[in-house]
């Protein structure tokens, strides 16, 4: 008798669950779920350095094909404020601001991947790349890289933990 009533309860429960899940299905089956952009980045520090606070949010939701036309002048203005004329790659202000204002990371599929290692330029970004020194040098170092030596390196040359050689490569958290 007891067993039967338990069975019966179980049946009712199963039935109601089925009913609930049916309702849920019919409500969601037709609606595609979309996701809207909030933040983006390509190269390190582009938005944070070159885009003023008031424009940061709109830069973060501007597709790369429109970034140069909408925000290129802000990059140029910042370079002007920094006294920029030419960098060690021989890029004048117009060329350099054109490169910077389309915020994508160039990645080689055939060579070593690094932000800059003395030979390869912008072929990716490895964990131990000193990207800040590369950017400081290109922004403040002038055409020889020797200008403003007090501004071209932050003298922090490596991470505070060693990276691993195997996936996922990043160090365990503190």
């Amino acid at each position: 008798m007891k067993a039967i009533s338990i069975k019966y309860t179980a049946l009712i429960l199963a039935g109601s669950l089925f009913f609930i899940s049916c309702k849920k299905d019919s409500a969601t089956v037709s609606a595609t779920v979309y996701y809207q952009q909030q933040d983006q980045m390509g190269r390190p520090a582009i938005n944070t350095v070159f885009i003023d606070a008031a424009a940061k949010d709109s830069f973060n939701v501007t597709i790369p094909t429109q970034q140069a036309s909408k925000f290129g002048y802000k990059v140029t203005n910042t370079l002007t404020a920094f006294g920029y004329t030419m960098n060690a790659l021989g890029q004048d202000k117009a060329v350099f601001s054109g490169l910077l204002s389309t915020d994508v990371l160039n990645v080689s599929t055939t060579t070593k991947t690094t932000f800059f290692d003395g030979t390869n330029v912008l072929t990716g970004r490895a964990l131990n790349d000193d990207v800040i020194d590369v950017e400081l040098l290109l922004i403040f170092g002038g055409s020889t890289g020797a200008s403003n030596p007090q501004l071209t390196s932050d003298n922090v040359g490596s991470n505070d933990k060693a990276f691993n050689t195997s996936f996922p490569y990043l160090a365990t958290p503190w």
Partner: protein
Amino acid sequence: MKTKKILLGAFAITAAVTGGLLFAADHIDSPNVTNQPNDITDLYVFRGENTANLVFVANTQGLLSPSATATKKFDENTVIEFNIDNNNDKVEDLVIQCKYDAASNSMVVYGPTVPSETGTRSKLEGAATASVIVTSYGSASPITATAASGIKVFAGPRDDPFFFDLTQYKKIIAGTATGFLPAGVSHDTFAGTNVMTVAVEVPKSLLGAAATLNVWVETKKKI
């Protein structure tokens, strides 16, 4: 939509009044997303241990202290999307999408695949191609998963790999210092802090034949 626009404007005004010039990889870069699960701190793309693979790393929610890290979670309503342009027109030709599933405590990967639409709005594309249980804080070793396709995935807290003397840079910008500190005195502002990491390693054969890619990462929130 109108409310959103007004809110955006309000945020922008607040930022203009209170915001100084910040400088970090992409940490704390904008008022709308700072300290939110959709705040990107860094993007890394590099060759894997197996050089036939490329590794895509997105870090989010930066400057986490050890005590704050333990309670951090990924957001079920946020997609972390790697965008890959393989013909240099700066429009994504492939996407790799990562979305957290709370019920299974897993990071689920979709792609690399051709997106059905490009730009600022996306939907999850096709069936999942890999998934991994999120590694918890304090776990001795990371949990990784490898799909039959060769795609590897990891998700969980990691040491922030970014290093920079941000404090001194802020002094330079504020006019209270004229240059960086010498080695030994300089200090990595990001030392001792963690981020929430998603790492996906993909065989290059799944990314097309281009010698050069343009890559960027986006966070997108459910609407």
